[in-house]
């Protein structure tokens, strides 16, 4: 039992279940399967972005440009769709992933080749990408009636009871798990964040690993750009403003260490779901809108505190200094 409680993911699952049960007492039907599926679908985009963010954070970096990347890519594909309605959707999705990966590669290159701290690079590209979205659109909107029906409807199509958007998130979760635990890149990401010096001695190219992590994060942000625009049926410059902080919060709640090297895919997914449950609960449980922001902030801090305490590890002494007997110093 004690061991179970120390497992971060299980603890987080327990917290989420308790939360859902608590909300269900205030809002009827909150815990119904249909509503839970709804919440998962609503959180899909955050899950996808959080997984990209996680890969970056594992390498001891951070990507603050994901939301701006999403906005630019979303605008670009929406405008392409409006201008050339005959282009097949698959091509547009590939385009979105490509643009996103390219923008991520710019981040990665600056971090890798120029050795600029990631927070500075992505803080810069955050404004650049959003600015580019403005330049691209001239401040205009792409509205629902300009987009093609397939562009708007594919992520909503129900397949086996869940919309395509949810399935995309599920596949990406599985994919991320595979990449991070079964491929050399994943091991390199953990190693280069956990102990960079040891990673270099082990023959891992830290810069290249970071670059790949940024490309991955960018590609997922690009895909999310399309998903976001189709979900809310509108593209404008300010879409997903501030969403990069949500992705970082999801990772932190999920137990991904901001110092790099620690964290699991399940943690990131649960962190995102935690936020998703709160976001979906607040409008229905009848809390004053003036208190909502403060409440969600408090809950997040509490979750992190809880999580951090559970994870606390005693420092391990590998080599004892025989000259100084224990307790005498």
């Amino acid at each position, binding site marked *: 039992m004690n061991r179970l409680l120390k497992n971060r993911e299980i603890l987080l699952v327990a917290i989420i279940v308790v939360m859902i049960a608590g909300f269900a007492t205030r809002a009827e039907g909150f815990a119904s399967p249909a509503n839970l599926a709804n919440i998962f679908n*609503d959180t899909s985009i955050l899950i996808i972005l959080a997984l990209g963010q996680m890969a970056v954070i594992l390498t001891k970096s951070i990507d603050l440009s994901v939301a701006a990347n999403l906005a630019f890519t979303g605008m670009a594909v929406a405008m392409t769709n409006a201008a050339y309605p005959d282009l097949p959707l698959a091509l547009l999705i590939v385009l979105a992933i490509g643009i996103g990966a390219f923008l991520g590669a710019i981040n990665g290159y600056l971090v890798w080749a120029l050795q600029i701290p990631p927070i500075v690079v992505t803080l810069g590209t955050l404004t650049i990408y959003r600015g580019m979205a403005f330049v691209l659109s001239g401040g205009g909107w792409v509205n629902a*009636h300009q987009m093609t029906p397939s562009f708007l409807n594919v992520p909503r199509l129900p397949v086996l009871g869940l919309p395509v958007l949810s399935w995309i998130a599920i596949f990406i979760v599985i994919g991320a798990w595979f990449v991070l635990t079964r491929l050399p890149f994943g091991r390199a990401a953990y190693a280069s964040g956990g102990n960079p010096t040891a990673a270099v001695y082990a023959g891992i190219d830290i810069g290249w690993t970071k670059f790949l992590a940024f490309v991955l994060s960018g590609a997922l942000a690009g895909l999310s750009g399309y998903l976001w625009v189709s*979900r*809310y*049926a*509108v593209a404008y410059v300010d879409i997903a403003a501030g*969403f990069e902080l949500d992705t970082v919060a999801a990772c932190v709640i999920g137990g991904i260490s901001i110092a790099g090297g620690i964290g699991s895919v399940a943690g990131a997914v649960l962190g995102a779901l935690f936020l998703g449950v709160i*976001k*979906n609960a607040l409008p*229905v449980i009848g809390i004053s809108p003036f208190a909502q922001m403060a409440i969600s902030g408090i809950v997040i801090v509490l979750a992190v505190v809880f999580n951090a305490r559970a994870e606390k590890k005693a420092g391990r002494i590998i080599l004892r200094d025989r000259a100084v007997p224990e307790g005498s110093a």
Partner: protein
Amino acid sequence: MKLANKLAIGVAIAFAAMTTAASAADMKIALVVKSLGNGFFEAANKGAQEAAKELGGVQVIYTGPTSTTAEGQIEVINSLIAQGVDAIAISANDPDAVIPALKKAAQRGIKVISWDSAVAKEGRIMHLNPSSNELIGKMCLTLAKNHLEGGKGDFAILSATTTSTNQNTWIAEMKKQIKDFPGLNLATTVYGDDLADKSYREAQGLLKSQPNVKVIVAPTTVGVLAASQAVKDAGMIGKVYVTGLGLPSEMAGAIKSGATKEFAIWNPIDLGYSATQIAYHIVKGDTDAKPGSAIKAGRMGSIKIGDNGEAAMADPFVYNAKNIDEFSKIF
């Protein structure tokens, strides 16, 4: 010296033009806009031309800078002074920067009014607002009533942020005037922060937690769009309606899907029409446009001048399936 020369020549030419032209009595009203090539102002020009035709003997000069700068408008005003127009109706890029130029125009007997975007008090005779907070509040309630069967039932407001000044003013107006709409009940007010995802979630929450709410009123474009999408995704089209304030180009999709039957925003055509009408009557000397007076503006009825010489044109214009296609191309 150079400027004075230019002006003298300009006046001379204008004078010559006025005396030689066959329709010497033609009144020239200049409609100065923030920038050319903007659909909103093109539509205003359409209204101005309509007013000119109706009034007869009026020539509307539609002009403005190519970019939305006060400097560009000052140049335009100077050239209009040179052309000897009778009135200037301006939507200003800057309330103060254009004043010296407009004062110069006023000294030469040109009647100056502002519309849409105001000029500070000393630079114009009166200002025409597209609408007023009171009228907007009333319009939102009327829209809610029109979507409800028998005009009775619950509605909810989906606003932007809790601190947004214009939103809060409009909501306060709605609460004040709701007694004029018996049977209409405001269930709750929620805030979507003008973010698509939060507004969408708040609308979804309303659908779940307030089953009595049959109409969501969103006096903000992002809100009205997100709520329409949420209603559509929840399969509640026909059961719950969304309405509010939005631009026709942005709302066309929501009208097509049936989530929104009608919504409102000021009509630029009416605005150009009214501005021209007012300018005409001021030039004719029918009115001094002092606070408290009323000016007849053709089909728009009588427009009252309030404090500070500001007037509100009319209710926001209502858009629905019948006229959305026409207007979504304009703005």
